[in-house]
């Protein structure tokens, strides 16, 4: 399968409690062969980065639906850099089209919204991790 041998952390930064998307993606990544760790709700970027390093993951997926994606992605990127962690970062949730470029510039390897097919999200993650 496309993600055999890969370890992925799905995380909910900030206070947003909507976790449907995070769980759907977690289930799909697992179905595609990845080992998936899910943080549960309400985690700080520092906590997420610490888990990412301890669990030695290949990628982190942040799920954000509260409109705080620009701040939370910036904080996560900074925490990753501070720790010298080289991990692919993906962002999913209610992200307006107008913010996609800013997130990519901040360091997100992919930005996914609810309307994308789950299979396309999994394929995009697999492609990035194959590089």
């Amino acid at each position, binding site marked *: 399968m496309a993600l055999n041998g890969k370890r992925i952390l799905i995380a909910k930064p*900030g206070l947003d409690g909507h976790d449907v998307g995070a769980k759907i993606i977690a289930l799909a990544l697992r179905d595609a062969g990845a080992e998936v760790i899910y943080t549960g709700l309400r985690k700080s970027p520092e906590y997420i980065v610490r888990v990412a390093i301890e669990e030695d993951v290949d990628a982190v997926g942040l799920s954000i639906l*509260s409109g705080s994606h620009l701040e939370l992605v910036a904080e996560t990127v900074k925490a990753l850099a501070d720790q010298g962690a080289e991990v692919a970062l993906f962002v999913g949730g*209610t992200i307006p089209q107008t913010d996609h470029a800013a997130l990519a510039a901040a360091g997100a390897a992919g930005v996914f919204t609810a*309307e994308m097919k789950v299979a396309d999200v999994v394929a995009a993650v697999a492609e990035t991790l194959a590089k």
Partner: protein
Amino acid sequence: MSDAKANPGPTLGPEIPSGIEVPEVVTGDMVEGSGERPGVYPFTRGIFPNGYRGRLWTIRQYSGFGSAEETNARYKFLLDQGQTGLSVALDLPTQCGYDPTHPMARPEIGKVGVSLSSLSEMELLFDGIDPGAISTSFTINGTAPIIYAMYVAAADKKGVARDRLTGTIQNDILKEYVARGTWIFPVKPSMRLIADTILYANRQTPRFNPISIAGAHFRDAGVSAIEEMGFTLADGLAYVDELLARGGDVTHFARRLSFFFYVHMDLFEEVAKFRAGRRLWAKLLRERYGVTDPKALMFRFGVVCGGSSLIASQPYNNIVRVGIENLAAVLGGAQSIFTCAYDEAFQIPTETSAEIAVRTQQIVAYESGAARTVDPLGGSHYVEWLTDEMETGMRQVIDEIEAYGGAVKAIEEGYLQSRTAQAAKRRKEKIDEGETVVVGQNHFRRDDGTNDFGEVFRLDPEVSARVLEKYQAILDSRDNAAAEAALGALDEAAGEDGENLLPYLIECCHAYATVGEMVAVLKARWGEFQEPVKF
């Protein structure tokens, strides 16, 4: 160039989203003619004998963003446009019990709702608005008893008698553990706080609904219409049991239990859901608790039209979706309706989109004729058949939850959480495969710029700074000794299980103690909920 051809479109299947297969024709011999009348048990046709002829539903748009001043201005705009009730959206720090200075709070200040960190913000929110003259609903759960206390304190300060307060506080923690996620404390102390609020409110603010037991969030998180109602009624029974255990009188408190649901796109499924749920709740209260007082058996509910049924592709199509859902809510007999704005799938509504959402309700109310007679679909072979089928399905869901050990256990152990996640995955697969048709997204899609929409909402970037400034000003100006004394009394009362905490919370609010301070006191006593991470 080849000739233009008609796009035949997808095939319309016989199944409604709940999974019930609908016959091509439903005939009279398939339904039992009941000759039921509205306003009498079991209320299938509605709780009032005259439906909307006596009083229209409340047009209540969920709204709030930034700081109290911006939201106050939006409320005045909405009231000017003919909105008839307020619905306060609170930001996540307020919902999760963090003061704006907390590191977890900083990025979220004012994003999904208004920041209310102490009584002084509540006073600004209602500046020039009389809480005794307009009904107000608060979507708040983890900190619901605190926000209720703050509202009562604000009314006290304005000199508004408590018995004039009308409105609703969501105050339904059970569904927060499954969907939406603004829990704070473990289940048991949370249930105590909810019961305390209901019992106190019944006495002090008798016209105010101290709970709105919500299915909406289960639904948007992935479950079917049948499960939405089944989960909700199971939660409702858990609250009734808790209230009875704390000495409540069911005939009294049941009059003020209210409910809240999503309306999604299958019009008849939604109408049947409300008719079946209304009937089933009355039957459950009668069968299990021997309630006979009609007022205590009445299932009163508000709805939201939109949510996950709205999409970002071709967003103007959402106006049509909300119109159909609005009609379903009216045909189902809702007491209050919130119609989402077409851009709500991806941003805080602009003033323009918010106005269209209000106008939608006015068109349904005054032009469509749907409100002219009670339960206009009553007696339709299809609707009556589907109402029966859905009631059977809902009873089955409740039985499954009870077989597990009841709603509280099913939530503490994550059973409802994983059931919801699995349902969400299936729902998404059906959309991805094109079996569930979503026009403009998985069928009839265009990727050529028609996804654009007029106006982008931009939250004032200075909001956070302003909120923090006002927060500091309160800490500097209040009588700190009074705030500390009130918090100390709260702490002591929290240690006594038999003590109702509401008078203490109201005292804290009057002393300008902050939401974060009150929550910190209770957290130190009770700890925090440990989420069962299941998917």
